């Protein structure tokens, strides 16, 4: 008689498969590839002139990456907890599975989907710069690594928001997008104007990616003084710490909130 796969394998296999065949996954992959392939397509069709360097060719997709990664995380994980506070949750939450395990497995499944998209995006970027110039951006592996870490951190953070705004799947996705695309940059700007380092914000940490893209200039100093007010720029290690911190803290808070949630009415 055959043996059933372990609970972790069953859950991870199922949730990952659902991600990888969802319409959201393919829509995201399409937009990531569109963003990365647009500049070379315009050059090849002679609509735009050849920008002359790998960094210049990639500057367009780089400029949109943070926004797209944010949107991607919101779509991949924005309803990862709120989906259970519907009639489907009556099945899921009455199963003998610890809620912390559900959070962990769903995070890994969304992270796998996010990794597939991000790695594809950066691989295509490397391929096109090699095809055009026989080389790529100097820090490309580092940039791709930070891009992936940012995606993983955003997925965790969005899962936490989904546990906060658990009553509506649409609301949890919308709030995720608004928090990261609107609220955080505003708070970041306010803190910057007051000379306070915005280290609690992941949008601050994401500035590392933009800085690494520009190999011609020096990496910005951590503290830059202009008159009485200091302005701050994250160091790469600070960026790693903030992003990794977002993964750990968001998932712990998400699991704690998820454990307390009740399914009173659906």
């Amino acid at each position, binding site marked *: 008689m055959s043996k059933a796969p372990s609970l972790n394998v069953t859950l991870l296999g199922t949730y990952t498969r659902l991600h990888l065949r969802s319409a959201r996954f393919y829509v995201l992959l399409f937009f990531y590839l569109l963003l990365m392939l647009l500049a070379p397509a315009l050059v090849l069709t002679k609509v735009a002139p050849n920008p002359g360097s790998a960094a210049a060719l990639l500057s367009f997709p780089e400029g949109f990456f943070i926004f797209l990664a944010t949107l991607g995380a919101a779509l991949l994980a924005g309803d990862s907890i709120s989906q259970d506070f519907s009639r489907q949750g009556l*099945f899921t*939450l009455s199963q003998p599975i610890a809620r912390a395990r559900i959070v962990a497995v769903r995070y890994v499944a969304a992270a796998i989907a996010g990794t597939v998209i991000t790695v594809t995006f950066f691989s295509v970027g490397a391929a096109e710069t090699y095809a055009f110039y026989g080389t790529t951006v100097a820090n490309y592996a580092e940039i791709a690594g930070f891009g992936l870490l940012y995606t993983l951190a955003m997925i965790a953070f969005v899962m936490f928001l989904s546990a906060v705004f658990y009553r509506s799947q649409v609301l949890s996705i919308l709030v995720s997008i608004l928090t990261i695309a609107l609220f955080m940059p505003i708070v970041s700007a306010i803190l910057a104007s007051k000379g306070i380092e915005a280290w609690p914000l992941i949008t601050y940490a994401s500035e590392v990616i933009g800085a690494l893209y520009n190999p011609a200039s020096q990496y910005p100093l951590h503290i830059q003084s202009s008159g009485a007010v200091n302005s701050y720029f994250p160091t790469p290690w600070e960026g790693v710490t903030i992003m990794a911190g977002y993964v750990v803290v968001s998932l712990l808070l998400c699991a704690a909130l998820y454990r307390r949630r009740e399914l*009173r009415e659906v």
Partner: protein
Amino acid sequence: MDIVLDNVSKRFGNRTVLDKVSLNIEGKGCFGYLGPNGAGKTTSMKVLTSLIRPDSGTASINGFSVAKEPTKALKFVGSIVEDPEPYSSMNVREFITFAARIRGVADPHLDELTKLLDLPPLDSRCNKLSKGQKRRVLLGAVVAQDPEVLILDEPTAGLDPKESLIFRNMILSMKKERLVLLSSHLLYEVTQLCDRVTFIDKGRIVESGGVEELARRFSSKSIRVEFARPVDESEIADIQRKGVATGYTRDSERTYVLGFDGSEEGRERLVEEVVKLRIRSLQDAGLGLEQAYTELMGGKQE
């Protein structure tokens, strides 16, 4: 196999939904849980399946506290509480296989289940199924999980007669080896399926016992009389006016059901009165569980 609710209370805002509810169900068989809408049936079942936490008291299954050790307690339980939906992005095969595998069951015996439950085609996406089909898929998932304890909350509500029959046959088969806790509004269904029953109203348990015992107890408060001649209602009303009958209903011009206070003397006095009108036959009214429900719930019928 046991299900225990020990002094469980739950409030939603200012409303007390469960008020020190205690239940102790052991062994195989089907246990009915009856009460009007809002009585606390679904809330009790949600407490037992870890969907909500009680404010006080404990719920346990096979000795494991649902609140403190939910994974251990729920390992024994298959449930359909309120109106769950199978995962919309899975097909029938995937959903039932997933449900089975999370309980360590490698093969859900899909062919057997398909025949038994008249499942929709296994490749159909769950979000394309009708309500009845979704219910059968969920029942298939529960059966595939092979649980010791089944908690079913009005499982046949909204189903057509054929689908209801499939559910009832499955419950009859499963109760032979398992403990089934079933809530239902359909008293004939409860009578047919359940061995024991508990009535709940306004969050409190009002009565518990064997189905037959309760039916007997409550039906013994009325007698059905067939008279030897057509009897005018005013003659029956006279008996009520004397305080001998507590009430009556007219089935036909010769047949009436008359209530009494439930005592042996009350019954004797009533029989003496109706005999004066010349009777053909007399028997305890067989309203059974329906009578019990009506009396316990203060006449509330759904």
